[in-house]
């Protein structure tokens, strides 16, 4: 039986897939500029769009997520603070998404690994997706290379120039960056005892294996025509396409879905800021402020919705809650010195 949230998610997922399909169809001049050898990549992006939007919609409809989602957008779109919010968004995007400051504070090595993986993948997708959707083509104009976007000529560049080198090797460079990230991450997963005890094959290692296979098979294409005289190029290109398709199909279901979830972190910053300047909740035992009223009331409502009716206990600060098990044990003991 399909629940309401599943029906909503199916609609959202289908809409996303239709939009991507329409984007490919119209962006490629009704498929006239579509590069058919890349159709497997394009088909995988359509499926990935459906699955990611479906999962996102399922996730966002969970009671605590939906409450944050609604509250944050409401706070963000307040007309009197919209300009400030947009400026703040630029800062938040820079700190949390571009340079990922919060990961650097966990560990510099971890930050380096994540920056390599994130930016290697972002650059690779920015190159691959427009090409596989038929949005970008390269052509010759005399001795220069011409870049066309959706059939419109953008600029020319000489192929034997530093810029040309970067353009032609964009995917190779991003593959090397991804491999550096995979190496750093695998080192942690192989030798750090804390990580070893909680990691799982499906959740933590498979994504690294996938990124590794995409990067290596991609580099093999260059190695093939540069060093192997093009031997087995067809097999290698199929192998690379297969690894990329598997990665795209895996994205909505595994650890890599956090790429889609992560912007929620930015929304929380607005929520916290609004809470900090608003009224505060006082602890029923200590009388001290401990939580914004906005957060307290929202959380209480979510907890009631989820069946966690803790009554007055919910009006206590975490510190006072921590004392209560000992205090209630002491009450039960009466005059006994200890439980025995």
């Amino acid at each position, binding site marked *: 039986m399909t629940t309401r949230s599943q029906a909503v998610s199916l609609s959202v997922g289908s809409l996303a897939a239709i939009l991507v399909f329409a984007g490919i169809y119209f962006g490629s001049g009704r498929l006239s500029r579509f590069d058919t050898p890349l159709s497997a990549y394009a088909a995988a992006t359509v499926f990935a769009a459906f699955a990611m939007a479906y999962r996102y919609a399922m996730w966002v409809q969970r009671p*605590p997520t939906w409450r944050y989602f609604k509250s944050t957008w409401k706070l963000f779109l307040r007309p009197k603070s919209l300009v400030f919010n947009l400026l703040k968004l630029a800062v938040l995007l820079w700190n949390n998404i571009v340079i990922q400051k919060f990961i650097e504070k966990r560990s510099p090595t971890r930050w380096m690994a994540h920056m390599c993986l994130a930016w290697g993948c972002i650059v690779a997708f920015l190159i691959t997706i427009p090409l596989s959707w038929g949005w970008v083509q390269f052509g010759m104009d005399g001795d220069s290379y011409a870049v066309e976007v959706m059939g419109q000529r953008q600029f020319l560049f000489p192929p034997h120039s530093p810029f040309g080198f970067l353009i032609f090797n964009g995917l190779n460079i991003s593959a090397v960056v991804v491999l550096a990230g995979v190496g750093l991450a695998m080192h942690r997963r192989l030798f750090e005892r804390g990580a070893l005890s909680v990691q799982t094959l499906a959740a933590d290692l498979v994504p690294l294996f996938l990124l590794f296979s995409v990067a290596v098979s991609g580099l093999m294409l260059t190695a093939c025509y540069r060093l192997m005289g093009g031997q087995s190029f067809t097999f290698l290109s199929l192998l690379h396409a297969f690894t990329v398709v598997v990665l795209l199909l895996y994205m909505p279901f595994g650890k890599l879905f956090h790429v889609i979830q992560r912007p929620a*972190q930015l929304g*929380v910053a607005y929520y916290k800021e609004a809470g900090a300047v608003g009224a505060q909740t006082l602890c029923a035992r200590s009388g001290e402020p401990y939580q914004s009223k906005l957060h307290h009331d929202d959380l209480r409502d979510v907890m009631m919705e989820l069946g966690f009716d*803790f009554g007055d206990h919910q009006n206590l600060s975490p510190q006072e*809650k921590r*004392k*209560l098990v000992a205090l*209630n*044990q002491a009450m039960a003991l009466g005059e006994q*010195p200890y439980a025995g």
Partner: protein
Amino acid sequence: MSDKHFYIDPSRCIGCNACVAACAECDTHAGVSMIHLETIDRGETVQTTPVICMHCDEPACAAVCPADAIKRTADGVVQSSLKPRCIGCTNCVFACPFGVPKYDAGIDQMMKCDMCYDRMSIGLKPMCATVCPSGALFFGTPEEIAQQRNAVPVNEFVFGKRTIKTKVSLMMPRGSTSLQVKPDAVIRKADLLETSRR
């Protein structure tokens, strides 16, 4: 999987802080102590209490997590938030009826006691239970605790209208089957020290 269980007895706590120091030695949260050691009321009593995660069967922290970042392992241990998912909202910090999760603003992540999962999952004692000199934190088999203590383990706690069952047990006087956690519990005037002097 281990047949050993965690038992806590706040009435035995002497506030030595050994658990706090040892906790930071655990590899799953190396260098960061996850245990809380609370002073109940310095003016009224010498009583202190260690607070570890009770590892609820139905964890409120996980239920209220908007990012679905808090997972419970097959052997019943509620883990720290998953780093890629946690968005630092602090819902878990304020929803936990025991006040356990810690939010670190620097790394924008919630971390909590995971019963030293690197040790516990292979049958070793969590660090705090290894060093506790008074038995306030005890990790062992049900037979061992029954043999060594008069008190009985209780793992059912009532908060308001909700009963929470936990993996960790609290030592209570004989005959107890659950603990109604009353927010207005008074500070025990006749504390451990005064009573033992009589």
